[in-house]
């Protein structure tokens, strides 16, 4: 990145960027293959990899149940599971595979691009509003979302919906983008003045890489948690 032009192509009048498509496909493929591999040979008495899969499912189901109560929770388990794994893998991807071609990046964290995180945030927000309407009916949904606690709260509520959407996407983008940026900066610094800077850069890079793994995990968790919170606000209006 860093001001490099991004290679794009046009298809059916829409603009695509190579790097996002390659990275997104790779992330999806990794998630799918991981889950596919983990879910082979299911047994009543879980062993090895099946335990891992069940643990992840239990973890994401736990996030969902933390915000959405009762039988509503089971409707969003799959979404939370896929979202968590996709964001997690995307976040970690750029940390160890970051390929820069002559005309911009070829492979990086998809979530280091605002268009990707905003797409995910948009999906979550649309899903939350859709769930609210289908659960409560449009009238109740409108009343509980925009007219509570007072009728003249309406502008603030509408504004809040936009800030929710923006912060959800931009928080993830900011964290991952900053992590990648600093990794690249340290990498650049390492090779700027010969061997001495390499020696100084190695522990720095190591430290920041570890911290970025941590941040990536936390941000995946936060994104899924906020998703379930927004959904629960639409589905179960506060009394």
């Amino acid at each position, binding site marked *: 990145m860093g001001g490099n032009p*991004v290679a794009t192509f046009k298809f059916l009048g829409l603009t695509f960027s190579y790097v996002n498509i390659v990275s*997104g496909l790779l992330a999806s493929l990794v*998630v799918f293959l991981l*889950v596919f591999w983990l879910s082979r040979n299911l047994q*009543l008495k879980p062993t090895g990899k099946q335990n891992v899969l069940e643990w992840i499912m239990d973890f994401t189901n736990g996030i969902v149940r933390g915000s959405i109560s009762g039988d509503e929770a089971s409707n969003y388990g799959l979404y939370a*599971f*896929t979202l968590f794994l996709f964001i997690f893998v995307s976040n970690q991807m750029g940390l160890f595979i970051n390929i820069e071609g002559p005309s911009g990046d070829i492979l990086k964290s998809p979530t280091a691009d605002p*268009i990707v995180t905003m797409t995910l945030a948009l999906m979550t927000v649309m899903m939350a509003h859709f769930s609210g309407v289908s659960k409560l009916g449009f009238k109740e949904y409108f009343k509980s979302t925009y007219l509570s606690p007072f009728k003249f709260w309406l502008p603030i509520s509408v504004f809040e919906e936009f800030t929710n959407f923006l912060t959800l996407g931009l928080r993830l983008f900011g964290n991952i983008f900053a992590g990648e940026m600093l990794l690249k900066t340290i990498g650049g610094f390492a090779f700027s003045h010969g061997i001495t800077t390499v020696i100084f850069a190695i522990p720095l890079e190591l430290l920041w890489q570890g911290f970025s793994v941590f941040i990536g995990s936390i941000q995946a968790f936060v994104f899924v948690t906020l998703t379930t919170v927004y959904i629960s606000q639409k589905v179960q209006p506060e009394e």
Partner: protein
Amino acid sequence: MFSQLTLGASLYVGDMLFYAICFLVLMALIAKFAWNPVNAMLKERADRIANDMDSAENARKDAQELAAQRKQELDNSQAEATNIISNAKDSGNKQRGQIISDAQKDAQLLKENAQRDIDQQRDDALKSAKDDVASLSIEIASKLMKKELNSESQKGLIDSYIEGLGKSNESR
């Protein structure tokens, strides 16, 4: 970098569409290959566990019933054993009394028989002694008549006879 912030001309709508579709396809694939099978398996496991717990509960109840039954039977058999022992004791006592009284009766009978025999024999002996005495007297008398009598020899004869009689009586 700000070319990425998509405020200008290059809004990558295609990317958004691509990611949305990619995510939905990924979700569908995960649902088909992992989520639904795992959930079905989890449900099966929950059912199995519930069944196992139910059957364990039933087995426990059965075992409790069986134990109670066994205890009752044991108590019954103990009572029965006491009963049998006391019955045996009673019948033993009865039998002992019977045997003792029978023996006493037998002994009495034997004693009576013996007494009767003794009496009979004494009577017989007395009778035969009387006969002997009579025949002896006759013998003596006949001897006396045959013999010439002097008083002294007669006296000695009689004495000797009487002595002999006493002896023969004693020996009896």
